């Protein structure tokens, strides 16, 4: 089960933040204090509190059943005919929605899929009272996207090396930027950075200095 670290001015504030972030109430997770906060003078010399949060876990069998039912219900309510298939019944759970004409569930740059996944996670927390790492895919979209992003990243890295200049990619969501960073992490001649804010955040591939 994934542990989450949370930082805030005080331990109490960190716990409150954890409740909001996880959508869990205090009795649904364990808290381990890593660093007590200290208030500085006029905001100088203060130290933030850090806590580690362990959500109470659910047996995997119940989790798979619960999550599948929730996703099924959401699809039914959305009026999108799709069949939920469990790709991995170990944590993190992986589910794929199969069916025809599911482009509407993916959306531009996978934005609808990201929303569906996020809402599914929130509903799962609310109904099953446990935070479960899970991934939702539609007709293998994310997998295909990952493969093509990896190929693109490797190709662009070669371009950067031969042209001796940096290349900036199109704006992408966080999980896709992560794929690019990870793909090129082992290349000794190249580094990657994310620049820009929010919707506009994008990866720059550049030569490693020195």
């Amino acid at each position, binding site marked *: 089960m994934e542990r989450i670290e949370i930082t805030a001015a005080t331990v109490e504030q960190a716990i409150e933040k954890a409740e909001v972030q996880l959508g869990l109430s205090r009795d649904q997770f364990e808290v381990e204090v890593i660093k007590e906060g200290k208030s500085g003078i006029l905001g100088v010399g203060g130290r933030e509190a850090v806590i580690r949060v362990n959500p109470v876990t659910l047996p995997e069998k119940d989790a798979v059943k619960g999550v599948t039912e929730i996703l099924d219900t*959401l699809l039914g*309510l959305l009026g999108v005919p799709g069949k939920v298939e469990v790709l991995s019944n170990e944590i993190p759970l992986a589910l794929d929605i199969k069916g025809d004409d599911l482009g*509407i569930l993916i959306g531009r740059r996978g934005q609808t899929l990201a*929303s*569906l996944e996020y809402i599914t996670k929130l509903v799962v927390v609310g109904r099953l009272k446990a935070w479960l790492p899970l991934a939702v895919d539609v007709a293998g979209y994310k997998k295909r996207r990952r493969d093509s992003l990896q190929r693109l990243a490797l190709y662009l890295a070669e371009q950067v090396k031969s042209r001796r200049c940096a290349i900036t990619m199109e704006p992408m969501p966080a999980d896709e930027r992560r794929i690019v960073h990870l793909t090129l992490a082992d290349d000794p001649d190249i580094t990657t950075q994310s620049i820009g804010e929010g919707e506009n955040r994008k990866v720059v591939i550049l030569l490693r200095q020195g």
Partner: protein
Amino acid sequence: MKDLLEYIIKSIVAEPDAVKITEENSDEGLLIKLEVAPDDKGRVIGRQGRVAQALRTLLRVKAAKTDTRVRLEIV
């Protein structure tokens, strides 16, 4: 539209009984007003409006299926 929103919202709030959803038809499509307990407001909006944004995206999927437009207001 209402049933979808109701299922999601009632799952994520602490006080499901305080959830009130009303629908209004106008020239600009469907207007949905969502009311929750004051303490639950943060949960349905989310950090930097992330939950509200995801809700709107899903409502748009359903609206597109029936060729309408939808607006969500959290009051």
